[in-house]
């Protein structure tokens, strides 16, 4: 089965490696990510004001357009996933807003699209047990910390991704790849998000707490589902290093990069050159290259 796919802006720019590895992994797993037509920016934030319908137009337009092509829409970026899934739920449940939005975008979308994150497809459609059997090069000996961030999980009532306080889905995925998933208390804390623009120190501090906690619990690498989080916890490590001299940087992977490694994709095709902290020394040390 092929899945209709919404990449989102970042996956065409800063997170090309995320996009490419996901597409390549899909082929090896027996399905195709079919990029939807005429997609736009998702809006990048679900509006906090209940009457801010304007902010709901981009995701609504995406959903309505996607529905013309299929019934399931998948995303990789956790922020896009959050915005699109919540908009979809709002369209399903609030008839008045649905009519207003449809009137404006000149569509007739009823919310009958299923929005899934790529990890959910791996879990629900393929199954982690089956995934484990398809792994060609298990990443044995790698201690990786699954970092969820906020967007996959919250608000719990709307996202229904996994347990709101102690999710396990991401760890189960990492264990299917053969890695040793590291538990750490900051796995669902905020990365600092857009604070990295206005108050970079705040974001650096958030990232330091998350990374420090993971390292203290034995992590050799972090795994992320989100370009925003990755920017803060990967690219910010240089700033952290300046402030905390004894901080030892660790690589941050997109989960699809590790999936690609385990599926036996050529390491050259995994886009490690886009990672801020160079993962090559670690991968060599572990004997994966």
């Amino acid at each position, binding site marked *: 089965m092929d899945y209709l796919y919404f990449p989102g802006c970042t996956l065409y720019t800063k997170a090309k490696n995320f996009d490419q590895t996901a597409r390549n992994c899909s082929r090896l797993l027996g399905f195709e990510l079919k990029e939807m037509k005429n997609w736009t920016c998702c809006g990048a934030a679900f509006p906090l004001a209940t009457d801010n319908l304007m902010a709901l137009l981009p995701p609504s337009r995406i959903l309505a357009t996607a529905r013309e092509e299929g019934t399931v829409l998948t995303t990789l970026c956790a922020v896009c996933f959050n915005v699109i899934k919540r908009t979809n739920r709002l369209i399903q449940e609030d008839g008045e807003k649905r009519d207003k939005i449809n009137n404006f975008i000149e569509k007739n979308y009823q919310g009958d699209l299923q929005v899934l994150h790529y990890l959910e497809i791996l879990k629900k459609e393929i199954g982690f047990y089956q995934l484990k059997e398809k792994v060609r090069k298990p990443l044995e000996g790698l201690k990786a910390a699954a970092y969820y961030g906020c967007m996959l999980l919250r608000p719990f009532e709307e996202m229904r991704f996994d347990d709101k*306080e*102690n999710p396990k889905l991401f760890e189960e995925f990492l264990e299917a790849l053969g890695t040793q998933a590291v538990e750490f*208390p900051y796995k669902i804390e905020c990365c600092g998000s857009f604070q990295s623009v206005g108050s970079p120190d705040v974001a650096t501090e958030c990232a330091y707490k998350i990374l420090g906690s993971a390292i203290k619990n034995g992590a050799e690498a972090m795994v992320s589902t989100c370009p925003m989080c990755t920017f803060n916890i990967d690219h910010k490590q240089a700033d952290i290093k300046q402030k905390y001299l004894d901080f030892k940087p660790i690589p941050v992977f997109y989960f699809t990069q590790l999936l690609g490694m385990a599926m036996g994709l050529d390491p050259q095709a995994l886009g490690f050159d886009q990672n801020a902290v160079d993962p090559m020394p670690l991968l060599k040390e572990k004997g994966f290259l």
Partner: protein
Amino acid sequence: MKKRLGVFICHCGVNIAGTVDVKSVAEKIGKIEDVAHSTDYIYMCSDPGQQIIRDAIREKSLDGVVVACCSPSMHENTFRKAVRSQGMNPYLCEIANIREQCSWVHQKEKEEATQKAEEIIQATLEKVRKNDPLEAISVAINRRVLVIGGGIAGITASLDLAEGGYEVILLEREEALGGHMAQLSRTFPDLDPAFSGLHLKALEVEKHPKIHLYCYSELEEVKGYVGNFELILRKKATSVNEKKCTGCGLCIENCPVEFASVFERGMGMRKAIDTLYPSSVPNKPVIHREHCRFFIDGSCHRCEEVCPEKAIDFKQEDERILEKVGAIVVATGYELYPKEKLGEYGYGEISDVIDGIAFERMISPNGPTKGKIIRPSDGKVPKEMVFIQCVASRDPDRYMPYCSRICCMYTAKHATIYKEQVPDGQPYIFYMDVRSDCKGYEEFLQKTIEEKGLLYLRGRVSKVFQDDGRVRVLGVDTLTGKMVEVAADMVVLATAMIPSDGVKDLAAKLRATVDRHGFLTEAHIKLYPVESSTKGIYLAGCGQSPKDISDTVSQASATASKIQALLSTDKLLQDPLIAFVDEGICSGCGICVEICPYEAREMEPHRGISVVHSALCQGCGACIASCPNNACELRNASANQVIRMLDTFI
């Protein structure tokens, strides 16, 4: 022969007369053929008002009365008493509600309101024309009481009733009396030891000749109605002959099996044969068969061997006991919201995060640590203590919307006791706002804050997790607007009070109602706070709503005095406005038997018809609506009467 009717229209000050033209209504009604007397007065319910009615009945020899006034729930009784004093049957007096159902809702439409008032009175006249004189139904009453639950509420109610001379059956599902109060260390605001006072009361219960105490027992079945409940109790097998046992404790000393004690909140161990707690009342041990080696594989007889009284009885079986009572007190108490369900506080997986009752056990001299405050994980004395209030309370989105009422005060008490024991320790208290609204509470609170150096932080905690052997607490202080992070040694959660396990099933057996959280509902929150909406069922303690010991004891005493009033006569009078069956029409289909919510309808097999149990019937009318043959009618609200009433409006 036509009846001679009287109509009395009340002004209710300006409440009615300000909208309805009472004079013209009285005049018009007075012209109706069978109305022998029609008048109005400023306050009919006042003494002179009632005198007008009494005089008219005598002078005009009336044989039916309509009072047009407020709702019958206000003054129906008043006027029925007034007519009875003149020898008229009280059920020939009816209320026409022209206040709530007319003048109050039509204040801007005076003409229409006047017309409507007239129609309401005419309809009521139709009813009175066909009313039968009725007598109250008299039911014999059993003057014994069942009290369910042997905590401080049940103990208090039982003692009050027994002292009043009534026989009490006290039922407790645990092995001994005391409930949660037996687990407490000291009580706020005076810091008195909780156990000694409770112990004295429990001993009084045990010795009282009027109280029959059944511990380790449950209520299996209830039948009947107020004044005449029939019960089946199940006394679970304790495997110890309580008549022979002297409570010497040799069996407990010699028992080789230990398991985690629920009473000690899992922090202490108990034996397979044991009492609920040291010097419990009754002080007789019980064998827990699921842990006892004799019952698992027959490999151990130690208790039997050492018992000097030969009291161990492995063959003992559950006993079913039949009892009859006239009233039932439900004092089933509370449980704390399980911390295993609280993700933000670690799902109960962090051993140094405990709840309020576990901390009570810790600071109790007879508790698992002999009163010493130590970390469950490594036995060290905690130097940084965090207390979190409103855990799962006042959180309508995720947990319980209500305030659990006791947490503010017991947290202040906990922190005070901690500070007494660990003077160099620092307690932090996260709170939403501190509620201290009873006698001596605010003074206690202020004293503890000022003298003990407690650090109150106004804000919630977002997360608690294990970190480097300590418990890291992330929270916020909303007064400074700063995030707060505490590396604590121990955390005490003031978790919400919830109704104890099994209350819903018990309520269903008793036909009592519970609210959406499972608390038993009272008949009226202000006016009938200790009665349940089912007659004969009374409430006491935290099964009804969260409350502290003072309130629980007050409520239990209130319940006991209400029951004493109920049982003070040997006959119970009941409203005769109930269903009856036209035996010539009833086909015995049995639909009414199934539909009756009060089990008041039953089939009489030899006549093949359905009958009404007059003491059980509440006159709800369900059977009347469901009868396919129109064989059921309600006394003084027959189909004929209702149709005539409707006709006046159409």
